[in-house]
C-alpha cells in the first residue's frame, strides 16, 4: 500500500497545477468579461477574403 503515498502525492501536484492555471487565468483578465466571448465565437472568420481584398484595393 506504500504506492498510495506516491499516487496521492502525484495527484495533488497535478491538482495544484490546475489550480495554478485557474488563478493565472483570473489574473490575466480572462474572467473579466464572460459574456462577449460567447458572441465572438459565433462570428465567421473571413480573414483571407478581407485581407486579399484590401491588397487588391491598394494595387
Amino acid at each position: 500500500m506504500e504506492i498510495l503515498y506516491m499516487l496521492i502525492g502525484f495527484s495533488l501536484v497535478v491538482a495544484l497545477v490546475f489550480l495554478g492555471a485557474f488563478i493565472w487565468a483570473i489574473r490575466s483578465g480572462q474572467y473579466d468579461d464572460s459574456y462577449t466571448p460567447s458572441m465572438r465565437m459565433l462570428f465567421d472568420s473571413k480573414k483571407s477574403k478581407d485581407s486579399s481584398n484590401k491588397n487588391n484595393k491598394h494595387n
Partner: protein
Amino acid sequence: MHNDLPFCCEGCKSVYQLLNENDLCTYYDLNNQPGTNVTEQERIHFSALDDPDVQKDLIEYQDEKITNVRFYVPNIHCSSCVWLLERLPVILDPVTEARVDFLNRSLHIAYKTGEIELSSLAATLSSIGYLPDLELGKQFNSTEKSKNRRLYTQLGVAGFTFGNVMLFSLPAYFDSGLGDSLHSLFVGLSMLLTLPALFYSGSDYFKAAIASIRQRRIIMDVPIALGMSALFLYSVFDAVHLGGTGYFDSLNGLIFFLLTGKVVQQKTYDRLSFERDFKSYFPISILKLSDGDEIATPIQKLEPGDRILIHKGELIPCDCKLDTNLAQFDFSFVTGESRAIDKQRGDHIYAGGRLLTGSAEAIVETTVDHSYLTQLWNKDEAEKEKDSVSWSDRISPYFTFTVLFIAFASGIYWWIFDPSKAIFAFTSVLIIACPCALAMSLPFVNNAMLNLMSQEGLFLKSGNVIQRLTEIKSVFVDKTGTLTLPSQADVEYHGSELNSIILAMIAKMTQKSIHPLSRSIHRALSSFTEQTSLSHFDELDGMGLVGGDDSTEILLGSAHLMEQFGVEIPSKVKNQPIDGSVVFVTVNNVYQGYYQLRPVYRPGIDAALSAIKDFGLKLFLISGDHNASEEHFKQHHPWFDKLLYGKHPHQKMDQIKQVQSTGEKSMMIGDGLNDAGALKQAHVGIAVTDDILGFTPASDGILNAGQLSKFHKLLLLARRAKLLVFASYTLSFLYNVVGIWFAAQGLLSPVISAILMPLSSISVIVFTTLSSRATAKHTLG
C-alpha cells in the same frame, strides 16, 4: 436608393457606403436589423475631445507608440455591433485593436500614438452610428474588476480544497482499516489544505465579524465566523489529540458554499448606471463667442461673463442671462413644467432647458458646477446610507444567541450526567448550527428576483432595494413624463369647422416645424393629404406659423401671434381658462377656432395606480406642472390621496423629507432632473424612462416606462420575495434542528456533519431558484 438597395434615410445609406468600401457587409448578415436610425444629428463638437483635461478621463494608457482609450457606447445592442466595432482597424488604419465588452457597452481601442486625433476617432464612431457617450464613460470603475477577481480566486481555492479534502475523507467514512500511517497522511493533508481555505478564502468573514462586534452589532458574519472557528479548532484537537479525522470536509464545504452565495450577490447591472452625474445629461461642449469667433468649448471651462451661442434643440449648459430678443424653452425635464416657456432679453435661464426656437445668445452667469439646480443633481453630495439592515442581519443576533444557549445548555447537561461528552456536545452544537444555508437564502432569492424583474423592465440597483420596496408606506408619483407620454398630446379642435383643404395646408405647415405643439397637431392631421401647395411659409419664433397659398393665408399660433396680425379673439374664449396648450387658427385674418392640446396619459396606469392603493399604500401626485387640469385629473384618475402641483425640484425633495420625519418610508417615481432630489431623498427612488440606455437621474432602480402599467405586479413580487426568503430561512432552520438534535446528544459524527452541510446548502439553492421562478410566473402572468 444606392446599389439598387432601398434605405430609410441618408444616415443609413452613408453607413452602408462606408461598410461596403471596407468590405464589411457581413454586418448586415449577422442580425435582422442591425444598427439604429441615425436621426437628426445633434451638433456634436468633437473638437473639445482634443483638450487634454477631457482626454485624461478617457485614456487608460499612453506611451510614444501606443495609446489605449476606452469609450462608453450606449448604442451597442447586438452581435453586429460587436462584430463591426471590433473590425475598426479595417476602417481606420492607425487603430491596431478594438475590443468590446458587451454587458458594459464599452469599447477599448488601441491606436498608434500621434497618428489619429481622439476627435476624429469619435467622429468616425459617430458616423457609423456608434456615438460615444463621454460623460457616462467617466463613471467606469476599475475597483469593481479587482474585487471580482479576488472573489473568484477565493472561490477557486475553496473549491479546490473542498474537492480534495472530501476525497481524503472518504476512506474514513467507510472505515476501511487503512492503517495508521495512511490515516495520518489523509488527516494531515486535509488539515494542511484547510489552511488556505480558512485564512485566505474565509478571511473576509472573520474581518467582517470582528468589525461588526466592535460596533456592537451582530450581522450574519458573526455566527459564520463562530461556526468556522469551532469547526477548525475542534477538528485540529480531534485529529492531533484524539486520533480522529476531524471535520475538515465540512469546514471546506462550508466555506465553498458561502462563497458561492457571495459570488451570486456580487452581480450588478454594469450596463446601467444608477449613479448618474447630471453632467452626462449635458453635451460635452458648446460654442463660445469670443472676438467674433465661434470656439467649441468644453462646458466645464465656461466662466461667468462668457458669451455662448445655443442652437435650436440644444441644452442650456449653465445658468445664464438671455441676450436675444425672444426665445422659447422646454424646461419639462428640469422643472416638470409641461408648457414651453417664453423668455426675453435679460431674463435668467436655468441650466438644463432645451431651446425650441432659432439660435440664441446668452451670457454665462454661473459655472456649470454652481448652477442653481446643481446641488440637487450632484451625486457628489454626501449620500445618506439608504440601505436597510438586511433580513439576514436582523435575525442573526437571535440565531447566534439561541445557538450559544443550546450549546451551553447541552454542555452543562452532559457535565452533570456524563462529563466525558460535555466538551464534544458543546462544540458539536456550535459546529452543526450551520448559518450557511441561512446566509445563502437572501443572496439567492435576491439574485433570482433581480433577474426576473429585469426581464420585466425594472432594473434595481441591489437586492436591498427589494427589501426596501416592502418597507414603504406611501408613493409619490411625478406627472410630466412619468404618468404622461412625453412629446405626445391629445389634440381637440374647438371652433368653426375647417374644410379639408385648409386642414391639409395646416398639416403641411406643421410638418415643417420642430416645435412639439406643431408635431402633435401634424400627427393628428396626418390623414389630410389633399394636394395643396404652400407658396410661402414662415415660423415666427415664440409666436407661431404663418403660411398659405395665393388665395388663403393661415395663421397658427399663440395669442401673441393673433395680436401681431390684428386678429380679434372672441372675448369668451380669451377669458376662459383652458386646460393644456392652445393654438389659435386664423384663415384670411378671420378667427376660426383653436386647437386644445392636452397631455396623453400612459395606457394602463389607472389599473396600476388603483392596485397600489389596494395594497394599502398612500398615493400622492407631485408635479412641477401648473394645476389647470386638476378637476379633469381628479375625475379620470381618482386614486390619489393628494394632488400637489407647482412643486419646484427643491420642494419635491422637502415634501418627501416632511413625510419621512413622521417615520413613514416613501417611494418616489419620477423621470426628470426635477425629480432628482426627491429620488435621492426617498427610501426607494425609481427613475422612469422611455430609453433605458439614455440619461436618467440617480436612482435605486430604473423602470422602462412602457412597464409602468405593470408596476403594481412588481411591487407584489417584491412582497412575495420576502415570503420566499423567510420560507428559505425556515427550511434551513429545519436542517439545524435535525443537526442540533444529533449534536446535543453527543451523537454528531463527521459523516453526519458532512452530509447535512452540503445537503442544506444545495437544497436552499434549488428551493430559492425554483420557487422564485414559480412565484414570478404566477405574479407577473
